[in-house]
């Protein structure tokens, strides 16, 4: 899932300070699962913002909505009927959702209520961890199912580097060395000799962010 976390309330309050009527839009997908932007978080944030505004003697009208997804046009269009009655849309979806709001409602400012952080999963309740950077050319079958692009601070393809010590990364002693994890896993799989002795060629980063904004077109799915 895409993992995000709430912006500090002070930052959000400053963002909406000049508005008195806003839409607060959550999303029922990834950000709901990581407890940052689902229906419950919409209610909590709306309550906090109204409370804060009351302390200044000003009213804040908030229309609370939680869309099925904010990354699909048909759902984003779901607020078309009343969007024009509001001065701004505060989206607590990921950055995709905020941008979809901006693209669909061109005359209404779209504001981000979250900081979108990474693609990852949950380790336990309340803990999320990054797993994928969406580089566009997956090599997990060669690295024991552990991503060196994400798990190595340098995204090395032929690691580890000299900064790996006792299984930890020099960037932060609490972070595991991705390449140590890969080597250990390859050994467990009995693939160490076959895989580790082979050097990875230079990676084509054009499929990653280096190639500019990416688009996938599936002709078979297009109408």
């Amino acid at each position: 899932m895409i993992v995000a976390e709430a912006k500090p309330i002070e930052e959000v309050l400053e963002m909406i300070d000049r508005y008195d009527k806003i839409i607060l839009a959550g999303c029922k997908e990834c950000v709901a699962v990581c407890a940052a932007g689902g229906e419950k978080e919409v209610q909590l944030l709306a309550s906090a913002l109204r409370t804060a505004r009351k302390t200044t003697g000003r009213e804040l009208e908030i229309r609370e909505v939680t869309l099925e997804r904010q990354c699909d046009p048909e759902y984003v269009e779901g607020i078309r009927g009343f969007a024009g009655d509001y001065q701004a849309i505060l989206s607590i979806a990921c950055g995709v959702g905020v941008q979809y709001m901006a693209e669909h409602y061109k005359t209404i400012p779209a504001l981000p209520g979250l900081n979108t952080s990474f693609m990852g999963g949950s380790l336990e309740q309340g803990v999320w961890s990054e797993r994928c950077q969406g580089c566009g050319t997956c090599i997990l079958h060669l690295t024991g199912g552990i991503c060196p692009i994400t798990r190595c601070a340098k995204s090395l393809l032929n690691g580890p580097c000299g900064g790996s010590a006792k299984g930890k990364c020099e960037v932060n002693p609490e972070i595991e060395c991705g390449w140590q994890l890969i080597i250990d896993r390859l050994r467990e799989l009995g693939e160490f000799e076959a895989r580790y002795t082979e050097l990875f060629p230079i990676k084509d980063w054009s499929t990653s962010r280096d190639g500019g904004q990416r688009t996938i077109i599936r002709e078979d799915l297009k109408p």
Partner: protein
Amino acid sequence: MDGVYVAGCLEGECHYLRGNLRAKKRVGHVQGILAALGINPERLQMYNLSAAMGGRFVEIAQEMTERVRALGPSPVTTGQGREFVAGEQEEEGK
């Protein structure tokens, strides 16, 4: 509403095992939100006591009443702006 206190079981003696510990964490979380909103987090408190501690319950109720009376009406009611800025209260000895 100018103040709230949450009364949980004594730590280690909760029928729901960790219910009171979870409540304590959540009260702390909400205190952080109140502070960010400019509301004195002292307005929200968590106390632990058992059902047999009637005397302590009275003490807590009086303590909380005095605390809220000293703080005065909530800025949510008065609309007079932030009553709390993180860091400043400690310097003023409040």
